[in-house]
């Protein structure tokens, strides 16, 4: 039983990490129907910015709480700026192009950003300072769940709730939903669609950056390539839950995280990814639009 609980928490941690990244994918897909391949790279850039800022601040002697807050802010701001710029340079000019063009552009952007970080920083792994201390009150549970796992879970939950509220109740959220459902009509009721799309990229990128910072601190190291693998997994999670659906992305992420964790624990980690992808294929075959995705009825 203990073992089950341990695996369960390990799956939850994984799931919440995927969720933070998957949200960006799903929001962007929902609004412009694009698989934003460069999203994983934004996550990676967020982690790198966090590393640089936190190191500089700690060298300048800032106290830990200040470092955490400022680092999170800086990572979110810069990642958002990258997300915004990427959208403007690589996707906006292709708004009316055939479907595949923006996808190729995204793949190109992903390669570009990876190598940009590789050249500007380093190809090697860099140690990431543990921003989250080991809490004393967590000590009795340390065998099950670490302090940083706990922080990741809590942060993800809070962010999820905030995001849901934002989308449900604010003017921007409404504009996002309207744009996602019918872009032309959104324009006709006076929504500045370009603006909404930019905001979507900014929010998605900020979430990914927070995720990047949390995971980097949890795992303790980063390099330029972390975005690719995490990105593919998060994207799988988003599709699993029904891409375009925000609760779907969260659900898909947790299912994927738990599947991987239990597959490792009870079967073998050799085929961890095979399980993940097989699950995806199976679900899509039986529910072609993901778990919570809406089956689109093609109009004849």
């Amino acid at each position, binding site marked *: 039983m203990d073992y089950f609980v341990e695996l369960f928490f390990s799956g939850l941690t*994984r799931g919440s990490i995927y969720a933070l990244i998957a949200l960006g994918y799903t929001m962007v897909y929902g609004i412009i129907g694009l698989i934003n391949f460069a999203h994983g790279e934004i996550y990676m850039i967020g982690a790198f910015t966090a590393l640089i800022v936190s190191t500089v601040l700690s060298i300048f002697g800032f106290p830990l709480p200040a470092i955490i807050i400022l680092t999170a802010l800086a990572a979110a701001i810069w990642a958002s700026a990258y997300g915004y710029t990427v959208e403007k340079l690589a996707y906006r000019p292709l708004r009316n192009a055939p479907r595949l063009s923006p996808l190729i552009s995204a793949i190109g952007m992903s390669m570009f950003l990876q190598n940009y970080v590789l050249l500007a920083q380093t*190809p090697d792994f860099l140690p990431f300072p543990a921003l989250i201390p080991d809490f004393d009150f967590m000590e009795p549970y340390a065998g099950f769940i*670490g302090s940083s*796992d706990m922080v990741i879970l809590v942060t993800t939950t809070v962010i999820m709730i905030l995001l849901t509220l934002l989308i449900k109740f604010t003017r921007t959220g409404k504009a996002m939903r309207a744009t996602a459902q019918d872009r032309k009509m959104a324009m006709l009721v006076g929504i500045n669609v370009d603006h909404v799309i930019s905001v979507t990229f900014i929010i998605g990128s900020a979430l990914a950056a927070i995720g990047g910072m949390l995971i980097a601190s949890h795992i*303790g190291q980063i390099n*330029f390539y972390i975005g*690719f*693998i995490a990105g593919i997994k998060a994207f799988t999670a988003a599709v699993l839950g029904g891409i375009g659906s925000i609760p779907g992305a969260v659900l898909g992420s947790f299912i994927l995280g738990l599947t991987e964790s239990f597959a490792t624990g009870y079967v073998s980690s*050799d085929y961890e990814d095979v399980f993940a992808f097989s699950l995806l294929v199976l679900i899509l075959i039986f529910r072609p639009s993901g778990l919570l995705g809406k089956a689109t009825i093609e109009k004849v």
Partner: protein
Amino acid sequence: MNLSAKLTVFFAAAILALTMAIPAMAGNDTIKIGVAGAHSGDLASYGLPTVKAAELVAADINAAGGINGKKVELLVEDDVCKPEVATNTATKLVSEGVNVVIGHICSGATKAALPIYRDANVIVMSPSATNPALTQSGDYPNFYRTIASDDAQARTEVDFAINGLGAKKIAVIHDKGDYGKGLAEFARKFIDESGKAKVVLFEGITPGAVDYSAIVQKIKRSGADAVIFGGYHPEASKIVTQMRKKRMKTVFISDDGVKDDTFIKVAGKYAEGVYATGPADVTANPVTREYREKYKKAYGDEPGAFFDNAVAAALALTNAIAKAGSTDPAAIARVLHTEDVATPFGMIHFDEHGDATGVGFTMYVVKDGKYVQVR
């Protein structure tokens, strides 16, 4: 002249220009040593020290007038550690008429490139390709190396775990890679053969995954006294960190890919007490000292991975060419097998398989943030 005629002429001219552009083959008055390996991309840090080593050795020889009056010329080619690129690299080196090659760096790339060298009758010496089959299969008589093979390393690890630490239950973990998995397979075999301990877990992890706590839980549940990990330091540090964070005291034994200062830097306090095999400490050897100092003087920092092995390869090859008095592969091979040469690892020659004698592994442990040799 109509358009079609113009185009024909244009095309003919283009072909002519391209033909002219091919550099005239250089004369045969130099000894060409190919240096192949990953010089860009994420594995560059394993390949670049070899280039530097070859450059230093070549500079020395040329300063002293060359080998038998001929200057040494280095042909440096990048293979980014990819097999398909390595074949191109090898073909390029062969077509440029190399006499011998130092490289490749990764076992996979080496394996792909070797048949090309074999067919062209070129001697290859790798400072870092540790796959046992490269020498032991007998498929590549032209291949030599200045590093011990994985099975030797696995044997050191297993012996240490069983006899040194008295481990009874051992978990063998690997990163699914060529190097790590090969090592783990050997470790499993040796543990089974020893009869003194049991493999309680044998599994691969996915490099680059966001979290390894599930596998760590599994190790914990298996009740292993020791973990033998085959792979590189990024994954090792993640696993060790998560094990220690879960308050597990299981001994962690790993390989040369982990015996890297970056591992200690990344894993920090959690690295304490981790064992890793590595080439025997040769800092006392005068040749080692000489070249490390030269490196520091030329580049200002510490030499990286496989630098000593690369120096050994460069010295062994150039020595063999000098002693053989020609670049005839058979003559060079004869010298390599029979005559000792002074290298950072002491006096070495090569056995019938092409493995260097006297290059072995010893066990290190992290103590106070440093790798120290286990006595």
